[in-house]
């Protein structure tokens, strides 16, 4: 473990530092757009904050955390040193340079384009080049994950790849596919426009290419949480994983179905017809399957643990679970938020029903709840499991870990549930301030304030989280080595090649992407749409 300890810690600290800064910004934003902060801040400051908050949460927290956790899994689950340590460190520093190149233009007001950066709104070229560097660094990580698994398979012929690593590599392969969309958009459209090489941009094509990345990226974020569900949580609860096979099936289904569904983010866009939109709605229904399978498999795994601890009857096992363990608590809270968030997602993907909520606060509520809620709470749980093993020190008290998790859950629910309601009322998103004197918006004020209250609780939780990790660098208690990974009820001796590798599945991804995105992208080449003039935000 030692060779990658510092690597994991470095990545994770960058991730969580970005997270804390973004949490502060998010809280400020909520204050400013509520009646309480109605005359605070200019639109320029507000949207600068939204850009920084989105970039930090969606690109920095996630990418760095996932890379760090991946290195951790590659060493601990495969029980071998990480290959290519020099490559890994080089990628880390490249990503750091990328982060600085992204953040500085934002701070200087030259990149107020939000984390989605839809052209023709165009930022300083440094912003985009910084993003490219972060993405390229993540590609190095992908390569190292694939190499680590490949080398292990060569040393262990015929054996099933440990599930945690199988999930990690499925995520890495999926990420390589995912980033193609945004990379093509940046390299061929946005960066040439930003540096002034072209004066116009095909907006419809840019939006379509970004949508390729935009949905799959949320699965990139989510899969580490699912890796924890399958490989860490059953052990933490004191039981077994109900089915290792279903874990593999889940990761494969995510690899295959996360990508050809991006168009459900373009449901209200005029550049695509009903046919392609409906096909992608159908495929979106398929991508709900791995989540539904996971809910069952992990609940069954928890049932095993609860019954082993003496739980009786239909539901007695629930109370019998060791809820005092942070990982178990986080899982329970994550599943509750997954329920609400999933409900929102079901509405969002509902073809015509998307019109009811598109670009309203419902959408903001949905992704804060499902990502900020279910996924990030599992990032906390993973951090609480990784840190003692990386620092050699144990948490002095689990009470504060549990408090931090509860605060996150309560804050997230209080923040996002009112937003769902406001979205149904028609409250639209990405707004610096509302005119609360207007009769329609006046009624929204109290709910916006309530939601802001939730945000304050989240900020408190974020501060406590940082403190909980910090303490582990100072404590004197030496860690008692605890096993981390779960065993399945039926530990696999051999698995079919299709559940031990990704060759076949890559072919399926290609076929599905051609089917789902082939024509939607080709149409921009066959019948070019009139382009729009580049609109430089950096001039302001």
């Amino acid at each position: 473990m030692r060779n990658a300890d510092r690597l994991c810690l470095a990545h994770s600290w960058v991730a969580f530092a970005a997270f804390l800064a973004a949490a502060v910004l998010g809280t400020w934003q909520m204050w400013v757009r509520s009646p309480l902060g109605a005359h605070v801040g200019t639109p320029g400051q507000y949207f600068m904050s939204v850009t920084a908050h989105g970039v930090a949460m969606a690109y920095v927290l996630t990418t760095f955390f996932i890379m760090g956790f991946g290195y951790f899994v590659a060493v601990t689950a495969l029980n071998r040193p990480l290959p290519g340590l020099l490559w890994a460190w080089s990628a880390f520093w490249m990503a750091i340079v990328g982060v600085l190149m992204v953040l500085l233009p934002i701070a200087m007001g030259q990149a107020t384009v939000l984390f989605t950066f839809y052209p023709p709104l165009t930022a300083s070229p440094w912003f985009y080049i910084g993003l490219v560097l972060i993405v390229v660094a993540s590609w190095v990580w992908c390569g190292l994950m694939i190499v680590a698994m490949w080398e292990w398979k060569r040393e262990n012929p015929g054996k099933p790849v440990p599930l945690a690593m199988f999930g990690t590599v499925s995520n890495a392969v999926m990420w390589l596919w995912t980033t193609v969309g945004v990379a093509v958009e940046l390299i061929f459209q946005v960066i040439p426009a930003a540096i002034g090489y072209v004066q116009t941009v095909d907006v419809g094509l840019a939006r379509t290419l970004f949508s390729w990345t935009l949905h799959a990226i949320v699965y990139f974020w989510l899969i580490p949480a699912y890796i924890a569900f399958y490989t860490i949580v059953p052990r933490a609860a004191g039981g077994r994983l109900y089915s290792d096979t279903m874990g593999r099936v889940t990761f494969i289904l995510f690899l295959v179905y996360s990508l050809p569904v991006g168009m459900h983010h373009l449901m209200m866009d005029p550049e695509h017809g009903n046919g392609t939109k409906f096909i992608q709605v159908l495929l979106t229904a398929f991508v709900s399957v791995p989540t539904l399978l996971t809910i069952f498999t992990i609940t069954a795994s928890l049932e095993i643990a609860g019954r082993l601890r003496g739980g009786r009857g239909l539901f007695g096992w629930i109370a019998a679970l060791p809820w005092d363990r942070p990982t178990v608590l986080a899982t329970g809270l994550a599943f509750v938020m997954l329920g609400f968030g999933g409900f929102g997602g079901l509405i969002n993907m509902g073809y015509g029903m998307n019109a009811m909520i598109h670009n309203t606060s419902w959408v903001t509520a949905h992704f804060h709840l499902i990502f900020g809620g279910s996924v990030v709470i599992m990032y906390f749980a993973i951090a609480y499991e990784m840190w003692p093993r990386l620092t050699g020190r144990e948490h002095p008290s689990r009470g504060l870990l549990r408090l931090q998790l509860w605060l996150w859950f309560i804050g997230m629910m209080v923040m996002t549930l009112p937003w769902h309601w406001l979205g149904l009322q028609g409250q639209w998103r990405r707004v610096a301030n509302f005119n609360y004197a207007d009769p329609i918006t006046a009624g929204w004020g109290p709910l916006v304030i309530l939601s802001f209250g939730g945000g304050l609780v989240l900020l408190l939780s974020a501060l406590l989280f940082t403190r909980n990790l910090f303490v582990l660098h100072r404590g004197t208690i030496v860690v008692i080595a605890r096993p981390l990974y779960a065993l399945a009820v039926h530990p696999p001796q051999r698995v079919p090649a299709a559940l031990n590798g990704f060759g076949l599945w890559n072919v399926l991804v290609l076929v599905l992407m051609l089917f789902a995105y082939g024509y939607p992208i080709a149409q921009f080449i066959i019948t070019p749409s009139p382009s729009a003039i580049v609109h430089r935000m950096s001039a302001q």
Partner: protein
Amino acid sequence: MSLDEPSAAASRVEVANDVDEESLAEVMRVVPLGAGVLAGSAVALLVLGYLAIYLLVFLPRGTVG
């Protein structure tokens, strides 16, 4: 955790110690009934909630095409 310490996942004894096979077999007679009911109810509630929004909010807002 040092480099020469084996991964916990590799150690059957370490992990298997916590779960006695006899008790596991006993428990597996009932599992996944509780999980099925809990998860099934949750998903059913989700679908009912979806239908409620569909009928009570979406459709009344009128056609759009």
